[in-house]
Structures are given as C-alpha cells and as structure tokens.
C-alpha cells in the first residue's frame, strides 16, 4: 500500500509537470516535440533490460530481447530524427 501511494504520488506530480511544461511549446515546434517525447516514451527500454537480464526461461528471454530491440529503436530513432529536424529550423540570415 505504502509503495502504491508513493508511486501514485510520483505519477500525479509528473502529470502536472508534463502539462505545465508542454503547454508552452509553440505550434512551430509541435512535430519535434512529438518525436522528442516519443523518444522519451522509449524509456520502457529500462524495463526491457531488467526483464531480459533476469530472464528465467528462454521464452522470457525472447520476449525481453524483442522488447529491448523495439524500445531501443524508439529511443535512438526518436532522438536522432528530432535532432535532424531541429537542425533545419533557422532564422533569416
């Protein structure tokens, strides 16, 4: 119970921080915001690493392996494409 309350507290506060931070992003940058936050949602790779690293059966190891690959594709693809996109935004010289 204690742990649940703690986790819920973290969850609720993080949602508020999220709302606060994102509402200030201008439409100009909505696509990089999406791909950037997309990369952050790949954070599930941490869970995938833990699950794969502690696999007790072959089945679990395979599930974990696929999860690591997919999540890491999400992370690297997301951050890299955001970087590429942001590099194109420039002011009038």
């Amino acid at each position, binding site marked *: 119970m204690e742990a649940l309350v703690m986790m819920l507290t973290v969850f609720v506060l993080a949602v508020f921080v999220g709302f606060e931070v994102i509402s200030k992003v201008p439409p100009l940058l*909505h696509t990089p915001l999406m791909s950037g936050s997309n990369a952050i949602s790949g954070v599930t790779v941490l869970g995938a690493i833990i699950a794969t690293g502690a696999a007790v059966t072959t089945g679990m190891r395979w599930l974990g392996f696929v999860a690591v690959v997919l999540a890491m594709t*999400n992370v690297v693809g997301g951050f890299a494409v955001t970087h590429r996109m*942001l590099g194109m935004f420039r002011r009038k010289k």
Partner: protein
Amino acid sequence: MLNLLYLLAAVSFIFALKMLASPKTAVVGNLTGALGMLVAIVATLYAGGVVDFPTVLAGLALGSLFGALLAALTPMTAMPEMVGLLNGFGGAASALVASAELVRVHHTPEESLGLVAIIAIALSLLIGWLTFTGSMVAFLRLREWLLGGRPTLFFGQHWLNLAIFIAAVLTGVLLVQKPEVGPPFYILTALAAVLGVGLTIPIGGADMPVVICLLNSYSGMAACTTGFVLNNNGLIISGSLVGASGIILTNIMCKAMNRSFTNVLFGGFGATVQEVGAAGPGGPKTVRRGDAEEAAMILESARSVVFAPGYGMAVAQAQHAVKELADELTKRGIDVKYAIHPVAGRMPGHMNVLLAEAQVPYDQLWEMEKINSLFPETDVVVVIGANDVVNPAARTDSSSPIYGMPILDVDRARTVMVIKRSLNPGFAGIDNPLYYLPNTMMLFGDAKKMVLELAEALRQL
C-alpha cells in the same frame, strides 16, 4: 543509487521538454534528453541485476542500428508515419515487458507479485498492444497502403469496440485473480490488439493529427504502467510526462478543428460521402480558371504574398518548389509570409517541418491567429494543397460539417490563387465555396509542377 540516477534522467527529460519550447534551445534540449536516457540505460546495465549481458547488449545494438537507419533515411514528408511507427514500437515494448514479467512470476511462484503489479501488468498489456496495433493502422493508412484516407465505419463499430473493451476488462480481472501464463493472458493480448485496430480504423485521414497525438500519449501511458509493474519511478515519471504531452497536443488539435475529443474518437468524421460538385444547390457555379502566365503577372504586381500550404504540398513534395517561388518574389521586393493552420497536414507542426527542410526561415511562418488579421491587407494568397482549413463555409454556413472550425481567412485577401488537382473535395468530402468566389483564381495541376511553372513564368516576365 539506481533510483537516484533514474531521478537524474527524469529531470533531464523535463528540461528536454522545456527547452523544446523555443527553436533556440531545442537542439540542446533534445541532446539533454538523449544524454539522460544514456545515463539511465548505463545505470540499469550496471545495477539492474542483469545476468544475461550478451542478449541485452545484442538487443540494444540492433535497436540502435534500426533507429539510426530510420532516422537518417526517412524523408521529412514521411515524418507522421515515422512517429506513428515508433509510437507503436514503444507500446509493444511495454506490453512485452509486462508479458515477460508475467512469465517470470509463472515460473517462480514463490516470488509472488503484489496486487498493484498484477493490475499494472493487465493495464500494460491492454494499453501497450492497442497502441501497437493502432499505430500500425495509422502507419499503413498514412502510407496509403491501407484503406486510403477516408474513414471506414461499418455499422455498429462503436458498439463492437465497447463490447471488446468490456471483454478485455473482464479478462483483465480474471488475469489479476490468477496471474499466470494461461488463457486470460492470451485472450487479453488478442482483445487489446483487436481494440487498437477497431479504435483507429474509423478515424479518417484528415483527423490523423489527433490520432498520432493520442497514440503518442498512449505509448507514454504504457511506459508508465510498466513502471508500476517494476516499481520503477524513472519509468513512471517519464511515461506520465509523455502521456500528458500527448493529451495536450490532442486537445490543441481538437480545438483547431472545433470538435470535441469524443467526436474525433467516435465521429467517423466524413465517413458519409456528400454529393458535391460544381452543380451545387444554386445551380452550376462558375470558377475562374487561370494559367501560370496570368498568375505570374498578378504576383509580380503584388506587394505582399502569403502562402497557405496543406497536405497536398506534402504529397507533391512541393516545399522546395515553394521556396524557389518565394525567392523569386523576394527578389522583386515582395513581402512573403506563410500561413500555417494548426491541423494542416497529417501531424501537428507538419508544415513547419517541411518548410524548414526547404530552408524557409521560421520567422516567416505565421500562426493562424496572428496572420488572420493581416489577410485583408494581403494582395495575393496562394493556397497550395489545402482545402478544409481555408474553407469559408466554416465561418458562414451553419449546415456545413466544419461550421465553427477556425480557418485561415484567405478569402479576405485581394486575390486568392488555389493550386489544386481538380475540383474534388478534400478528405472531409466538403464542398469549398472559396473556389467560386470572384476574387479566386483556380490553377489546376500538380502542386509542385504548378509552383515551378509560376516561378518560371515570373522569371520570363
């Protein structure tokens, strides 16, 4: 110690999102987020109880390779698909982690999971798999490999979705009561996958910005539930940040279309095709048809020109041509601006990215609210592949399905040029009175070809 490093990563994500709010700090912000992720991954490898390093490292390497290739090779016009695809990957990964955790408990019953973790596993399976299949439908649809752009709504779709959802919840309850790899686990997985398809299929091409935002939000929530499974605050914080960000963007998109969230989700907007064409209720309407030479002459004598791009510009990959035309105009001392509607294109900010790719400076990109007051003083507006977002019926015709939607008031400019393939209505299937206005000139043809012809005609003058 591990949790402390996760906190550091979470803080870096918050800074990353914060810095993405301005083009000046965005690059550093994105790198900050990437660095935070690197720290979290290394910390997990070091202190996460990993035994089987070869499998984990192979997975990380393979994923990095795929990710890097996707990021480097995807053209800017395909960004909506790419984001959609990656959303799906994140969702699937979360669901797989929850599945793996269930397998572990199944084989080591002595380490029983808490009730919270089991409920979180069920939720993670549901959200994760529906994010995955939903994203795949969105991806296939954006590629136009499936169903085209029109919404597909068959009779009773929403009731069927509701029934599947209820069945999924009931199966989830069974799974929570007896957490093992058995029929409830497989059934829940299958139901979630079907639900993802059922929820996405009725939503049409023009509503894709909303779907992409929503799936983005789901992928964050899936990561968040995985955090509850593993009792991992790093995942909970990051997942909820993304969940919140997706919801906000969804909301902004809905407002820009003057539609409620539920209407987009359940509306099947534009599923019924209206009978439209040049012969409307008031008899046959006439359009003024122009050619490149005539249009170039009008452009040359203008002082201010505004481009209003839409999805058609993306399809025709016309952004570089538009920049070329804009350069010709600027050379002649004509003021050039771009009017960007929030839902123009297939994802939020789609037009901005394409024009940035064509090296249009971002201070020439104007948001709808700011540019609308300038249209009455604008000499020429060139509409390129946009339809519903410039449809004055949204302002005047209360019977129109898009009535009340905020639009770019291009019809208030002195001259409007519309570059379009034909008089066919857009994705929403709504006739556009803009085309029949006396100050509108229709330029029929492929967006890219026509814009290049205009630039050429301008040079010939």
